[in-house]
């Protein structure tokens, strides 16, 4: 295999996800990577397995092509159990449809791979997508699989078994941190590496940390653990007079959480801001950032807050979190689920301007290690390694 082709005119890179435009972190991330690689001179093609019910607005004029391999839905497989189900004709019809869909995708993928120039790379961002991509003949093009969540969080989900089943065939399985990668290696996957998420934008104007505002940006659902944040705030608020907790986001638990807030008597110090399209504005308007998630991968929210020089307090719920925040240096961590400790950390930050300034400025300096340029360089190194 020759390596020269890639250097001059760039590589053909396929980024394949469940859908091209499903609302969520993976889509944001994959289009960001696509843009970065395109800017570098690579020819990127973003692929989705099928359509999604919750599309995100990607904006007009993407600088790279996108393709949905199977417009519509891929029927889920039918595994009959018991006599009654075995007689269900519709089930078998569904399986036939599914197989036809898979055949169609396989043909399309193989045509794309066959047309790719030497030096091409395939990046599969999600486990479900991998189940289909692996079936196609990829003609020695290196395949990079990804898992955008922590090892622990995978472990509680069906993805754990599926990663173990489908990823040994990949050339590389990328986790978000070395710590997560090592845990997967101990599960006897020997092709594991890691790749941190890049910081999307570098803000020219950081927060001045002049308002008495603690910000939290995240969906109002179970994973983000807002219920625990409210419990912590109930302890911290009396010790942080004049401070307001601003919650940005919406989600399925909104009503329940608002009821909890009222029950805890926090209506005076909590503001429900709803979904925001102006994250920079929200961060510039705050002096402390808080995250109380049950599970995270490599949380973008923390990266962004730190880039805006806002010091963070967070549950140490995943390797990605302790990788980003250096506890006591550029932010404060609390043991996962220990709301009393999170409250203590919030009080430390809200009551001490000096500490806020020191940690906020340190955060902005330190988080630069996840700049677009640095991360892109790591991708180039990985491509080169997979070709040797």
């Amino acid at each position: 295999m020759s390596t020269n082709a890639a250097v001059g005119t760039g590589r053909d890179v396929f980024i394949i996800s469940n859908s091209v435009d499903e609302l969520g972190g993976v889509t944001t991330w994959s289009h960001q990577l696509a843009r970065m690689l395109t800017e570098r001179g690579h020819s990127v093609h973003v692929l989705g397995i099928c359509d999604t019910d919750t599309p995100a607005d990607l904006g007009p004029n993407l600088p790279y092509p996108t393709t949905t391999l199977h417009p519509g839905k891929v029927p889920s497989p039918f595994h009959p159990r018991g006599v009654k189900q075995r007689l269900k004709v519709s089930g078998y019809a569904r399986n036939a449809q599914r197989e036809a869909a898979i055949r169609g995708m396989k043909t399309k993928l193989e045509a794309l791979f066959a047309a790719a120039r030497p030096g091409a790379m395939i990046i599969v961002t999600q486990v479900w997508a991998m189940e289909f991509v692996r079936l196609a003949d990829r003609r020695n093009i290196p395949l990079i699989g990804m898992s955008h969540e922590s090892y622990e969080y995978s472990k509680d989900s069906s993805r754990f078994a599926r990663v173990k089943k489908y990823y040994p065939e990949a050339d590389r399985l990328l986790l978000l941190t070395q710590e997560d990668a090592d845990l997967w290696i101990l599960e006897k996957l020997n092709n594991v590496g890691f790749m941190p998420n890049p910081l999307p934008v570098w803000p020219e104007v950081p927060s001045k940390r002049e308002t008495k505002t603690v910000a939290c940006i995240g969906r109002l659902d179970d994973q983000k653990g807002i219920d625990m944040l409210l419990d912590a705030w109930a302890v911290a608020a009396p010790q942080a007079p004049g401070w307001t907790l601003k919650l940005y986001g919406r989600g399925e638990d909104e009503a329940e959480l608002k009821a909890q807030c009222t029950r805890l008597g926090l209506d005076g110090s909590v503001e429900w801001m709803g979904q925001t399209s102006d994250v920079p504005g929200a961060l510039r308007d705050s002096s402390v950032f808080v995250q109380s998630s049950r599970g995270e991968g490599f949380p973008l929210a923390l990266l962004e807050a730190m880039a805006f020089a806002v010091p963070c307090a967070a549950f140490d719920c995943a390797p990605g979190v302790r990788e980003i925040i250096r506890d006591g240096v550029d932010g404060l961590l609390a043991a996962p689920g220990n709301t009393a400790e999170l409250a203590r950390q919030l009080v430390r930050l809200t009551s001490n301007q000096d500490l806020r300034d020191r940690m906020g400025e340190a955060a902005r300096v330190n988080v630069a290690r996840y700049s677009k340029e640095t991360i892109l360089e790591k991708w180039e190194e990985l491509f080169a390694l997979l070709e040797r």
Partner: protein
Amino acid sequence: MISALSTPDVSVIVIVFNDAERLPRAVQSVLDQTLHSVEAVIVDDCSTDGSFEVAQRLAAQYPGRVRAFQLPENSKGCGEPRNRGIAEALGTYVMYLDSDDELELNACRNMVEAAERTGAELVSGLSTQIYIDTRNQREQPWYRWLYQRHQVLEDVAELPDLFVFDTLSTNMCYRRDFLLDNKLTFVKGLLYEDLLYSAQAYLAADRIALIPNQVYKWYMRQNVAKADKSITNRRDEIRNFSDRIEIHRRIDALLAEKGKTGLRRHKDLKFLKHDIPLYLREFPQHGPKWQHQFAELSREYLATIPYDVFDECQPVHRVCAYLLIKEDWANLLPAIDWLRNPRKTPMPLVERDGRIYFCAEHLDDEVGRRMLDVTEVGFQARSLGESMLRTQLLSWEPQDGNAVRITGRTVNALGLIPQKAQLSGRLEVKARRKGLQTFSFPVTSFTHQGDYVEWESTLDISRTLRPLGLVDTIWDVWLNLGVDKQRTRPPLSVDQLDLDGVFAARPRLTRLLADRLEPEVSRPGHLAFQLTAVGPAASKGRGLLFDLMSGPVGSPLKRSAKRVLQARRDLGAADTKVGWYHRAMTRMPVKKGLVVFESHLGKQYSDSPRAIYEEMRRRGVPFHAVWSYEGTKPPKGFPKPGKDVEVVERWSWPYLYALARAEYWIDNQGYPLALRKRPETTYIQTWHGSALKRMGFDMAEYRMQPRHKQDEYQQALDRFDHFVVRTEHDVDTLVRAYRLPESKVLRVGYPRNDALVAARREEVLTGKRERGPVAKELGIDPARTIVLYAPTFREKAPELVLDPVAFAERFGEDTTLLVRSHYMQRLAVPRTLKGKVVDVTDYPDITPLLGLADALVTDYSSVMFDYALLDRPMVFYAYDYEEYAGAARGTYFDLREAAPGPFVETQEQLFDAIEGVRNGADADAEKRRAFASRFGEYDEGRAAAQIVDRFFGPAAGTQQKGQQA
């Protein structure tokens, strides 16, 4: 494909000697590497089986990727071929591979990536031993603990275990210029060249990277005939040991030169713990010449190890090394037996000035005393039943091919077998495979000789022992020795005795399978018999059978046998049981009057469920009780099964069946979470103690669980229909943390505490403290003061925090300490402290012990809340309070403030507090009463009565149904 001219990333040096068959597999594992830029350099150590021809063929087949070389003459080792390989290698990096092993497919890529990312000269990864002669190719990672994560060492001294343990050279990747610059080569003419090579490489490297990835597949056999053993595994030639010592000396010189005294110490320790025992285990099988040479070599080398390194070893290693230096064979043999069987009591032992020594010899010397002190092992705390007394075979006299007369002696350790004891015994010969037959042979005579008991027996083995002939090939022999009412069951150590003779065997199936029993020595050095086929009929029959089993008839047979076994296992699996429970059992009608009881997950017959059960019996309520227990047989104290009470094993079929059909569930902790409760069943959860530490959803770990897990847990909690509380504190903590509705709260107090309230009342009334039958049962003089020490369970067993000997010294005259710990972390109470310190861990129920104790010492255990009802002094020995309360879990209140008694943190303070209690000082009486009413407001002595009234009394039935919503 790499051209011959370019530099490959990695050269893998594959060495081969007479292994033409497996060489291609090894080379293929190089060619298949995910990193493409890899070459294989084959070096043949002058094989005679055509290995070199195979190598040349591979080179011709893969030009530019495989090259083949041959040494002019055989070097009898691995070093020379590897040295040649280095000379020929072209790659930036070098790895070594043996012809019978394989590289993991990503090995080179992972190694090179780590080397380039970190700039390390040496990268080491995980090697996995794979046993090819085991059924499922059993895998054993080599020193996994060193390879848990990626790490970078600037100096090998940062991780001494790496230097000391991982001394292979095959799981490493070296930068070639690093090897050349440092002139690293394998030493010639010595075994264990790897050891020296890896030491040199570790010490020369400026940076070492470790990766947790598996890189090397090391194929091994579990059962190797002597002749086949690889060169270094043959420990029976003295050269093997002398070479090892020589290698160690050279490494020591290197360490001295580099000033690495810390590493030397680690290496010495490993030498004592691993190297010496490795040879000692086989010591008894060697001839006197080898033994002498071995001792000479060891003594010289051990003299270079300072005594304080010996102190760090486990006693067994220290004793062995010392006796070896002394060439004290008589005492060394039992020490080796102990080394091979760590649970054994190997010697009569000697007690001097409160210390226990291995033997009486060498004690006049201070070093001898230091080396032979085995007090910390705790032999002195073992009862006869807990001791496996070394029993040595003294003579072996075969009689006419049918029987053998044997004599033996059993050590009488620390006088466990009194002179006047009634001795009885038999030899048991038992098939090694579980669940088959056992045959017994009486011991014909015993002679008590002080330190030993000698015995003799005749095994008329041919007449009595009837093997099946097929699955019971190996038979182990045990002495079953009765001393008064206690029994012990040691195996028979053969040591250096010659076992001759062959005995006729009469298999039950057919004599065509086997016809002889031959004595043999088992792996740990004990007497056993093996069933063999010697006569022509038997050997043909056996041979035929084995051929058949491995042939076309055997495979389906074996397969169906496996299926039957698997089905049997599946039937016992929890999933199957839960399935049947939900699909079938819970659809049967509920059985009126069936009540299932459980206490502490079946570990005891105790606590509130017991109190309710006994109250129901007292009242003569008509009901059918089922008590569950954990383990294979009911622990002490459980009721005798009868017409209206059953005792069933937890998770057994009858247990599930009872739960499925019960009208009531009564327990104090929780029935298996996977089991749903049907709505017709009423669940009375009595709980097992008020809370100091956060519980349920107040615990961070439960709070952090994703919603579906929380819901699952909540569902299990929602099975409770009634939750017993003894105070509003319980409502604020437990009830809230388990998210139970107010309607389920049963404010009646704990039934288990009725007895305590009654005892207190009695005491106030009569002004007298009744000891009751418990004191007698435990053999405690009722006139003595009794202190109960009941600490809470800890995940990590702490080191000794209360020295029973010191307690007895200070208070032994008139005070008894009862110690109730947890099985995992029990104190070793020496037998000499009888009556002064009593281990009551096994006593089934704690409530009677609380009633017995004049004072309680605890830390954070919930017994503090119960004991307060007695209004007797309490001492809080909270030596790790900060750690306990400060941990992520946290507490509901600050014990330091609330404790109704002295709060102490050292043994000194504790003893002073106990002194105070003995002198009748009671400064905290008022605080204690406040504590009792705060945490026991509903404990009024009628809890069991109220519960029975409500659910099983005459007016029940109508009432309880309404409460369920």
